[in-house]
């Protein structure tokens, strides 16, 4: 994907920010925000799919990029679903305030991933990119804009996830616990 596309997407994020500000000022929901959100979701999903199978970089660099796009897409989807729910329930535009709070971190995550996309990442770059995603998820959590684990599992092979988790639990423990005898009764 060319840099020009990224600039267009950045401008779309800016447009969403303007719409959110308008809703907050007028205290009224504007559902025309759903269309640009859909476009951004589609764009992020395309990037995510690209990095899911990409073999031209180290597995770690490709994963960090994939994980970033996947989280950007998940949170955009959550913003959209919150808007759709708010319309059905005729809620006041609290959702616009939450959306505006998340948008800043979303832009940070987006610009961060576009800066690193397509090249090998140093450990520091991997760490900085994952930190931005952590920050995005923390802000989304505080605004009730974080997809639940159930949402994430619905699009996955659950058996495979648990298998990976079991291996992961052993790996993280063995990297932490260096003695074979921790001796607890």
């Amino acid at each position, binding site marked *: 994907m060319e840099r020009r596309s990224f600039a267009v997407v950045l401008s779309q994020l800016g447009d969403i920010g303007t719409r959110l500000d308008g809703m907050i000022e007028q205290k009224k929901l504007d559902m025309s925000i759903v269309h640009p959100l859909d476009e951004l979701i589609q764009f992020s999903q395309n990037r995510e799919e690209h*990095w*899911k199978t990409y073999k031209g970089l180290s*597995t*770690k660099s*490709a*994963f*960090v990029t*994939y*994980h970033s796009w*996947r*989280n950007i897409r998940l949170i955009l989807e959550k913003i959209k679903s919150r808007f759709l729910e708010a319309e059905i329930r005729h809620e006041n535009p609290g959702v616009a305030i939450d959306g505006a709070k998340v948008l800043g971190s979303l832009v940070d995550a987006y610009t961060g991933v576009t800066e690193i996309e397509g090249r090998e990442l140093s450990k520091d770059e*991997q*760490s900085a990119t*994952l*930190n931005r995603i*952590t920050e995005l*998820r*923390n802000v989304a*959590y505080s605004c009730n804009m*974080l997809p639940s*684990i*159930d949402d*994430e*599992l*619905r*699009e*996955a*092979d*659950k058996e*495979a*996830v*648990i298998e*990976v*988790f*079991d*291996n*992961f*639990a052993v*790996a*993280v*423990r063995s*990297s*932490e*616990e*260096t*003695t074979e*005898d*921790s*001796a*607890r*009764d």
Partner: protein
Amino acid sequence: MKKRLKIALETSVIIAASVYFVSKELDSEKTAKDVHYERAQKLITELKNRVAQRTGVVTRTILRESRNALRNAITNSLEREGLNPQNPSIILNQCGDRLERIVEMLSLEPIDQKRKDHFFTQVVSMYSMLLERASLVTERTTRALAEDRTKLTASPRYRGIKSELGTHEVRQEFRQLYNLRGNPPTPRDREILSELAALSESYSAEIPTDLYLASTDSSHFSPMRFPTGIVSDQITKQIEETFHVRCDWPDVIAEIVSKQEG
């Protein structure tokens, strides 16, 4: 006067409480977790009830190490051929979010770098001294100590059996020290302990404080407790004596926290 209570969480405890996977989308028997999850969670629950008192604390090094430990375990698992990155991504989100919720209820304590550097040299010296002592724990000295104890307690007829049992007990008694030889502290362990020593000093300069370090790492911090009732805690005791930091398992510390009033 009752002392103030501060509980620092070491990386191993934060990780143990974070590595937990449950979802309505899964069968209940498919719930997965770290082997020390229950122990760690017991302490987390106590600390949640004491957020206002700022009992639970963490340092920047421990926080960074905890995040890195999760991420490294995930990215290292990717090396397995053909792994769908979606699954590790889900797990990183799930465990990473749990870690962040734990960290939110802990106070991130600033550390005086000069004092940390000062204590770092003391930490290095202490572990060197312990390693020297550990080199004395051999099969020969273990047997000799057991035989010596047996002479005082058993009749000549049963000394052989009693001595074998005694050797086993002595081995357990000195296991923490013995293990240190094959598993010396990492630079990370030393750094964490020097930060905790600096923290203990700064707390005590304010008001009398008991500082605990909750850890599931019994090679370098917490005591080893065997089902026989034997406790091996040569390193744990030395840390307390030198740096006034009490290391123990999270469930043991949870009991201490729960017994202390408000």
